[in-house]
Structures are given as structure tokens and as C-alpha cells.
């Protein structure tokens, strides 16, 4: 069997005296969708930032496609095939939707016209082509999520990290987003996704990693995770009460 696409081993990050991530280890294999869940403050976004090079780990390694990429800069990682979206959406507000998506293709080395073609394909695949000439700041939250995905796709990634697919999105848009992520996988992408909506996780993920206070408490198939006593008591139980 081939080596996993992403191997995270012993990843640790402290802010002040507090562990944001502590000795986190798991793999993401080719063609998989792995869900990352956990309560607020569990260290999910920090883990994304560590994997994508925005912050350096205090200990541990990240390997991508067999090579050690620990602490590598975000732009270099992107060129290797790692793309991400942000939980707090970061469109380029005063660029058009199309220009937003072109940036990733241009950074890959494309010329203007081929970047435009790539951008249009990416926008079509997320269903935003009708908005392409408008400014990004005119988009709704759901549209911005799609824009971020299109932007990431235009970099030609092999691994896509999605920070909250459905957070802040209105209910009717959710099935469309689920379909979109599913179709990305069928095109050969590997995905690591942070998601609070368990319905989304259950329908998409092959495996689920549960983080709590920066540590990995459980890992397994979605059904195993939802039956895991600690996950239920720390996360699912409370969520059912709260929501």
C-alpha cells in the first residue's frame, strides 16, 4: 500500500503556557475525506495553521507525499499541492470574483489568459460563474465559501483543507455544499475538513479525528466516533443539549 498523502506525527504547539496542540498524530490517505471535529478551542484551526505553514510547531513533523514539509512556508506548500480555506473567510474584497480565483493559478506560474481559463473552470465547478465579474465583497457568506473553494482549486491542489464547510451558511445551501465536496473527491482530491455539523460529517467523511483541548482523543469511522463514549460525553452530548 502506498504511503499516506499527509502524515502528521507528534505535532505540538504551545501559546504561552497553554497547549493548542499536543502530540497529535494521524494520517490522511490518498483519496480520503477525513473529518476533524471537536469543541471550540480544541485546536482544530491551529492544526490547520501548522499543517499549512502559517505557524511553526514546537515539536512534531508534517510529511506531505513522503517529504518532510514541517514549517515550510504556505506559498511553497501550495506549490507542492496543499491548499486551504479559512474559517474566517478571507476573500480579496476589491478584486472581482474571477480575479480572486486567478491569483492561485497565476501564482502557479500560469500566464494571464490561461489563469483566466483555469479560474472560469474552478468557478463553474463551484457554481459561481454567473458572479465572476462582480466584486468579491458583494457575495453572500455561502457564496464566499464557494469562492474560497474555487480559489483553492485553481492552485491545482492534491490535498485540500477546508475549515468549516457549512459554518455560517443558511440551511438550504448545505446539501449543495455537501455535493460539491463529494464531487471534489471523485475528481481525485484528498480532503481534510473541519466541520461542526455532524450530519455533514456522517455523509462525507471516511474517517473522523476527534480533538479535545489540543489532543487527539479518538479516531475512526464516523459510526465508531459517534458511539465513542468520550466523544459523546465531551462533544455530542453537550451539543445535543445546546442545539
Amino acid at each position, binding site marked *: 500500500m502506498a504511503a499516506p498523502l499527509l502524515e502528521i506525527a507528534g505535532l505540538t504547539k504551545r501559546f504561552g503556557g497553554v497547549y493548542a496542540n499536543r502530540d497529535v498524530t494521524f494520517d490522511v490517505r490518498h483519496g480520503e475525506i477525513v473529518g476533524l471535529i471537536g469543541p471550540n478551542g480544541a485546536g482544530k484551526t491551529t492544526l490547520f495553521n501548522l499543517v499549512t505553514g502559517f505557524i511553526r510547531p514546537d515539536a512534531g513533523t508534517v510529511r506531505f507525499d513522503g517529504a518532510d514539509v514541517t514549517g515550510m512556508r504556505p*506559498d511553497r506548500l501550495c506549490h507542492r499541492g496543499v491548499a486551504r480555506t479559512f474559517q474566517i473567510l478571507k*476573500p480579496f474584497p476589491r478584486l472581482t470574483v474571477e480575479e480572486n480565483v486567478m*491569483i492561485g493559478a497565476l501564482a502557479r506560474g500560469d500566464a494571464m489568459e490561461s489563469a483566466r481559463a483555469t479560474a472560469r473552470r474552478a468557478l463553474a465547478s463551484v457554481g459561481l460563474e454567473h458572479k465572476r465579474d462582480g466584486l468579491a465583497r458583494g457575495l453572500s457568506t455561502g457564496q464566499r465559501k464557494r469562492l474560497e473553494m474555487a480559489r483553492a482549486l485553481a492552485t491545482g491542489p492534491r490535498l485540500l483543507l477546508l475549515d468549516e464547510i457549512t459554518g455560517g451558511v443558511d440551511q438550504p445551501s448545505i446539501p449543495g455544499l455537501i455535493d460539491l465536496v463529494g464531487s471534489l473527491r471523485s475528481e481525485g482530491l484528498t480532503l481534510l475538513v473541519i466541520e461542526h455539523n455532524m450530519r455533514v460529517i456522517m455523509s462525507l467523511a471516511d474517517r473522523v479525528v476527534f480533538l479535545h483541548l489540543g489532543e487527539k482523543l479518538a479516531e475512526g469511522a464516523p459510526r465508531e466516533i459517534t458511539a465513542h463514549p468520550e466523544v459523546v460525553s465531551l462533544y455530542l452530548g453537550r451539543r445535543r443539549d445546546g442545539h
Partner: protein
Amino acid sequence: MRAWLAHRVEGLPVAAIVILVAALALYPLAATMPFWRHVVIMSMLYGAMGVAWNILGGLAGQVSFGHGLYFGVGAYTAAYCYTAFGLSPIVSLPMALAISTGASVLIGLPTFRLRGHYFVLASVFIMQSIYVLVSNWDRMGGAIGIEYPVYKAEGIADALWHGQFPDKLPYYYAALALFLLALGTFRAIQRSRFGMFLVAIREEQDAAHSLGVDVARYKLYALIASAAVTTLAGTFYAQYVLYVEPISTVSLLVSLEIGFIAILGGIGTLWGPALGAFVIVPTTELLRAYLSGRLALDMSRLADGGPLAWLEYYALGGGGNVDILVYGLVIMLIARFQPAGVLGFLRRID
């Protein structure tokens, strides 16, 4: 042909651009008085610097108050090489550009890691430190600066070699060339991949970084380009006024004025800084000329001891720095009412 003339470059039809450039080129025929030529020369000089600042401040969103440094590099290199070694500005200019690029790398590499206020303050402190260092650098004339010896050129070739001309006309066309070069550089960058990256960095640095844009590298390129044009302006300035001193080159005040030109006209736009320069420079030059005339009158009356002389004296003061006063006032009004600058104001009327 007609379609081409109607084509718009950032909202301005090509026909209008042709007319404006022609008007600038023909202006000295109409304006024969040195003062009126001087006003437009200074407008084009500051316009060029505002446009250059806009590459870094407007496109890349890195607000620097240190551009006086690059202006000073151009001015001091020319003045020092000429007065110390008799070197023509034609020879010293490549040296100045090399120094400017070196300084850009040295300063840009560490400071571009800083964001927001931290970056702005770093540029302020570096500028202020350079000012103190140059003011105490005896070889560069300290706080007094360097004055060119008067040189009477014999023939055009000699004048070109010395970079000194007896009347303002050659300076005028050199300034026009500089101004157009700055605009051309800005436009070329704005339309390129490089320009797209800069705007992406300005709009959302982390997103640009995650999409594969080498943020540090492109910020540095933007600084180098911006600094090079500013250095060119510095060399022109030294050869034009034939006197270089710290306060009018490597100072925070000059750095502020440069950035302000861009803000006043419209930050991040092609035409904004050019427009800004042609609004504020003539205004302040005229005001200054008017007030210094008034001051000469009042001083004589003060000597006569007229009854209200002291009042006028205090009310008019030195009459100095009225340009800065206007700068300060206008800058606040722009920040308060129309951060998109005069261009934004015009668009609103439109």
C-alpha cells in the same frame, strides 16, 4: 484609430491622455516666466514620487513613511559624487540606483514581516534614524548639506555631462520624462501578474500566501521598484536645486509629503497621485510665494513702528511652513471626508 482613442485607461480616454501629455509638453511655450515653469516642474517631480510611493503603498498596501531615504540616496549620491569627485550625474545615477536597491533589501527583508502599525512605526523610526545619521555625517555636509559650485557650461554636451543648465527648460523636460516614466512603471506593474499579487497581498495577505504567492518576495520587489523611481527623482532634484540638505531630502516630513500626494489624489489608482500633485503643489507654491511677498511688506512696516505692526507680525508670523500647514489641514480633511481622495470625490460627482 478612433476606437483606440476612445479606449479608456483607468477611466481616462486615450484621447484625453494624449491631449494632457501634449499640453504638458507645450506648456513652457506659454509659460515663459521661470516661476510658472518651476511650479509645474515641482508638480511633476512630486507627482512622480507620489506615483512611485503608490506602487508600494497603494498596490501592495504597505504604508511606508521612509521614502525620503530613497529620495535622499538619489540626491546625496549625485551631490557628493559631483562635488567630491567631479562625477557626472550620468555616472553617479547607476550607483545611486544600486545603493537604493541595496537599502531596499536591507530594510525590506526584516520590516516586511511586520504588519499594520508595527510596520508604519518601523518606517518612521528608520527614517528618523537616517535623518539623525545624515545630519551628523560630516562628509555629507552634516545638517547644512552640500551645495554645488556654480558651473558655467559650454555647449550642450558639457551641460548634459554636468547636469546643470542655465535656464529651466531642460529641467522641465527632464521632469516630464520622469513623471511619464513613473506613470508608465506603475501602469506596467498594475497590469502584470506581479501587480495582481501585490493587490492580493494588500487585500488579504494570508489568503494570498496560502494561494501560493511568495508574499515577502513580491513586497520586496514592489519596494525596489518604488525606491528606484524615487531615487531617480532625488538625483533630478539635486541637479535642479543644486543644493542638498537633510531636512528637504531624508526627513520624515518629505516622506510624509510623498505618501500624502498619493492619498490626496486617490491611493492605489493610476491617476490619483498625479492629480494629487497637481492640486497640492501649485496651491502651496502659490501660497508660499504670496505670503513671502506679504511678509517683506510687513517687515518694513514693523521697522516703521506702525501701530498695528506687531499684531500683523504675530498674525502672519514667519509666513514660513504655510505649505505644511495646508498639507496638514488637507490631509485631515481627506481622511475625515473622502479617504478615496480627490479622485473618489470626482467619481462621486460623476
